[in-house]
């Protein structure tokens, strides 16, 4: 509808408008952007600069009692990089991210392919399930999963007892051991993240033209070949963008880890970047600043692809 109207109008000559480049006119867009810009400069720009400055300063006991912070150069960074705890946290964060991205992406792609394959009824069924999982607030999700894996009355232990025909699992704690803590965490976050990937990839799949697929089928290409040579190239950019977003989100995960720690995990053995900064900040603001700076740098590095791709796609 809208296109027809605009096309019809385009044919008519547009009336000549005098172009007065007055100062007022040039300032109008900036005036309109001013409120948002002020909020962003004060609440993101300033904290970013302040955090960077903190990371070069010493915050010790004296500073808690009001002494001005001492300038110590790169000592916070050197201290952080020499601290085995930091490397343990970094290792956990990156391993968790890798596992989550692989699990989320592969499950999401498989579900999207399934949605292409089944009829409208089953597609609706899958969509409803995914929507519900996606819509759950993070804290609600963690609390519910925490109840499922509860030590005493959790459903998981009951099921495992029933399946194995023993009582071995009664009172088994899933959150005390870091490895099974991470297994639970992975299940929770994957469960919440798959819907986004599945819906996005499904939307991409519907854009692959049927004619091309049919032609390939007539030429004798099997399902795997058709997927590899036709569907994948079409989906390439969608898959890359989604994977980059998942990497960013999974690397900065906080709510789920922190809430799950509250349900019975040991924070010193399960901290990731976000929760590590949170726990570090109360004792050493300078070191927390250094870790924060490293985290920001990593995020920006990963998002370079995403930002440049978006700028190109949207023709900004």
């Amino acid at each position, binding site marked *: 509808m809208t296109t027809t109207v605009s096309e019809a109008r385009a044919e008519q000559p547009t009336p000549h408008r005098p172009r007065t480049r007055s100062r007022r006119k040039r300032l109008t867009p900036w005036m309109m952007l001013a409120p948002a810009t002020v909020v962003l400069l004060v609440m993101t720009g300033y904290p970013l600069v302040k955090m960077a400055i903190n990371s070069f300063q010493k915050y010790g006991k004296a500073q808690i009692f009001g002494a001005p912070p001492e300038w110590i150069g790169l000592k916070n960074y050197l201290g952080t990089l020499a601290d085995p705890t930091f490397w343990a946290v970094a290792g956990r964060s990156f391993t968790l991210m890798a596992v989550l991205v692989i699990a989320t992406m592969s499950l999401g792609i498989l579900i999207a392919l399934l949605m292409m394959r089944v009829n409208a009824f089953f597609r609706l069924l899958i969509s*409803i399930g995914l929507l519900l999982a996606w819509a759950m607030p993070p804290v609600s999700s963690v609390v519910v999963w925490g109840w499922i894996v509860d030590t005493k009355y959790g459903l998981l232990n009951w099921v495992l007892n029933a399946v194995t025909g023993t009582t071995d699992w009664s009172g088994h704690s899933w959150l005390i051991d870091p490895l099974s803590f991470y297994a639970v965490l992975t299940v929770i976050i994957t469960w919440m993240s798959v819907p986004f990937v599945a819906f996005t990839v499904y939307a991409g799949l519907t854009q692959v033209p049927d004619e091309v697929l049919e032609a390939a089928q007539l030429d004798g290409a099997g399902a795997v070949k058709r997927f590899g040579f036709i569907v994948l190239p079409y989906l390439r950019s969608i898959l890359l963008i989604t994977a980059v977003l998942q990497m960013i989100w999974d690397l900065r995960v906080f709510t789920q880890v922190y809430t799950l720690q509250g349900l019975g995990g040991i924070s010193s053995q399960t901290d990731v970047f976000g929760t590590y900064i949170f726990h570090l900040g109360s004792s050493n603001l300078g070191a927390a600043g250094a870790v924060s700076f490293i985290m920001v740098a990593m995020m920006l590095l990963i998002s370079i692809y995403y930002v440049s791709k978006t700028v190109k796609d949207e023709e900004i």
Partner: protein
Amino acid sequence: MSVVTRARPTGTSAEASGARRPASVRRRGTAREAKRASANALWGVVSIIVFVCSVFPVYWMLNTSFKPNADVISPTPQWWPENFTLRNYVTVLFEPARPDRANFGSSFMVSLAVTGLTLLICLVFAFIGAIAVSRFKFRGRRQYIIALLVIQMIPGEALMFTIFGMVDSWRLLNTIIGLTIVYLAGVLPFTIWMLRGFVAGVPADLEEAAMIDGCTRTQAFWKVTFPLLAPGLISTGVFAFIQAWNEFLMALIIMQSPGSYTLPIWLRAFQQATQATNWAAIMAGSTLLALPVVIFFLFVQGRMTGGLVSGAVKG
């Protein structure tokens, strides 16, 4: 919206063409159809498994929330609330206020106020901002949009202490205003970006047409473009609502006194206070936190995926 619907022949094409083919081909055709039917059944079963896996935690939350606590901690799980009760919801909703602990009612009011304020201010700021970046050509426009995209990638987790320090120095800790300002910075980049897409989707020619018909530029905007932007404003608003309603970290550090907890902080505190003694009530609280989000989510789900891929932030 799409007008193009593929015309379908009456009767399936397989039947129609099968009747005209020689017997041998027809037999092979039916064998293939049988294989297809069993494959369809298989994928149907897989679909049901996917559905059950994604819905199960939600079902288990609801199921538990309607059971008396005595049934909840029974050695064998009940798959259905046999002694259906709403008492857990009553417990959560009308839990008396205690000085050392937050209750649902006050946390709900805080969440509602912070979310409402964030939503309102964000929509106004983002709307005029989006008009500026999509309807005006000015120097620095491109750089501004790129800056918005980059700012979104700066994790709040890294800035929490400096933001805390600022809010503290303004004496705005434990206040609705303080948290709202923090949330605004969090949602603005994405909402400007999202609205920019909607504004760009309304052709400027429409406004020019209205101006030819005698409207002023402002009139043309309010009478022609603005009504067409309503769906965009609703989607953006719902997105900002969900972000603010679900947010956890900033609320955790800014709202430290129990009287100023938002709902996610309340739920976590409630869970810890009743530590595994009243799971039924915890599940009722969890349901109440999720309910508004689920309702609003259904409105914008389709736009969320597209928006998130080109905009990108997640709750």
